[in-house]
């Protein structure tokens, strides 16, 4: 028959020789292999003490950014929600009232901003869609939780701390 790949190997069906029947040479060979492995580099990463490095383009948990004066950049335009292929983002807009200029940069802001981390596929399209540079993907991943609702991250989870408030 015409061989298809030339990778087929004939199975050796000769009766075993005495040395093979004794099994001891084979066992000795196997023990040599395992003994070598004792001195090999261990594959383990001792996780809490050591962490595996992420790639430089790693996309992790989202953060909502502030500007230099500590005001929220998000203007609740909804472009991130539109761009999101997993439909994980939802928001509610509100109008900035007089006297809140130190809190929100634009006249319209997100009163509620939620990302469902169970739906999110961490594609980073929201980051690309955002015209105000308000949403970024950080370098951590979502920690485990006991309940599904724990994975719906609100504004207080996403918003970075006010740099001015921290300075004090």
């Amino acid at each position, binding site marked *: 028959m015409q061989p298809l790949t030339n990778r087929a190997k004939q199975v050796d069906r000769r009766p075993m020789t005495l040395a093979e029947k004794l099994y001891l040479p084979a066992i000795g060979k196997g023990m040599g292999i395992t003994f070598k492995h004792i001195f090999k580099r261990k*594959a383990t990463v001792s996780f809490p003490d050591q962490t595996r490095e992420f790639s430089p383009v790693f996309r992790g948990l989202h953060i909502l950014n502030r500007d230099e004066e500590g005001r929220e950049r998000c203007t609740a335009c909804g472009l991130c929600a539109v761009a999101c292929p997993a439909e994980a983002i939802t928001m509610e807009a509100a109008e900035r009232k007089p006297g809140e200029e130190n809190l929100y940069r634009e006249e319209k802001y997100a009163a509620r901003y939620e990302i469902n981390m169970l739906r999110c596929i961490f594609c980073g399209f929201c980051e690309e869609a955002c015209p105000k540079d308000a949403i970024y993907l950080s370098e951590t991943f979502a920690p485990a939780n006991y309940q599904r609702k724990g994975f719906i991250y609100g504004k207080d989870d996403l918003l970075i701390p006010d740099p001015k408030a921290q300075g004090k």
Partner: protein
Amino acid sequence: MTLLSIDWFFLIEKILLISVILVLSLVVAMYATWGERKVAAWIQDRLGPNRAGPMGLLQPLADGGKLFFKEEIIPTSANRFMFVLGPSIAMVVACMTSAVIPWGGTLTIAGREVSLQVADVNIGILYIFAVVSMGVYGIMIGGWASNNKYSLLASVRAASQIISYELPMGLALIALLMTTGTLSLKTIVEQQINSGVYNAFIQPLGFLIFLICAFAECNRAPFDLPEAENELNGGYHLEYSSMKLGFFLFAEYINMFISSALMATLYWGGYGFPGMTSLASSLSPNLITIIGFLALFIKTLIFIFIFMWVRWTVPRFRYDQLMRLGWRVLIPLSLANMLITGAIELFRHHS
């Protein structure tokens, strides 16, 4: 009055010696569990236990503590007395064998010659065989008292395995006894020290058979079918929990320690070490004894390591393969070994 006068120093000396050896074998068995996991991990390119204490050295304590605080379950239909008796026998028997092993020469303390051997019985090897074969009772009683057919079947399998492998072990030993001409372990060791040739070189085949049978006797891989953790979900100790399970597992490790010490004693010169006779003139006898004890200890640890190394290398036998190896390979082989040894000994005595 001579009958009533007790040599108190003798009594104290022996009690001390017994407690030291008992504690030693328990500690070695404890750390053998740690070593087992470490060796397994290293062979599989892992790190092994390293959380409890430096290098995970407190791991055995944590394991023991866990076993002690586990809920103790005795099945309602089990025979309570027998159920407790099973692991107790396994444990006691495992500890008893260390009595006749010579752990070293003699120490001279305040003018008294203290032999580092609990009892120099002149039938030492027979004693060990008698005691070891009692270990089967622990397994059988444990399996039967659980009132669970799977435990019973597993204990029958374990018992038949141990009995099958005791035969070639004994036959291999007979060949050794033909060359040494004594049953006393101390004399066997002294012969090896004096001649400078270890019995393993005189009886290589016998040693190999003894080693293989020791693996089987201790229920260790590749002959660990009675327990086969990853296939059976527990063998004869299926119904056991808490420290009673711990006793069964612990007895295995003590057995491993004792059989390693026995192999070192019978075939690798016991507490003798190379250059012992030439050093004897320059060093104090007490120091020689201590070095000798350390030599035996190191030899034993090497054997324990070999036990673990084999366990994590060789895959488990099938039951019929196990029986075929025992009855159709090892017994004829040890018989032939015995015959050849006998013929050579006879030839040597007549010429």
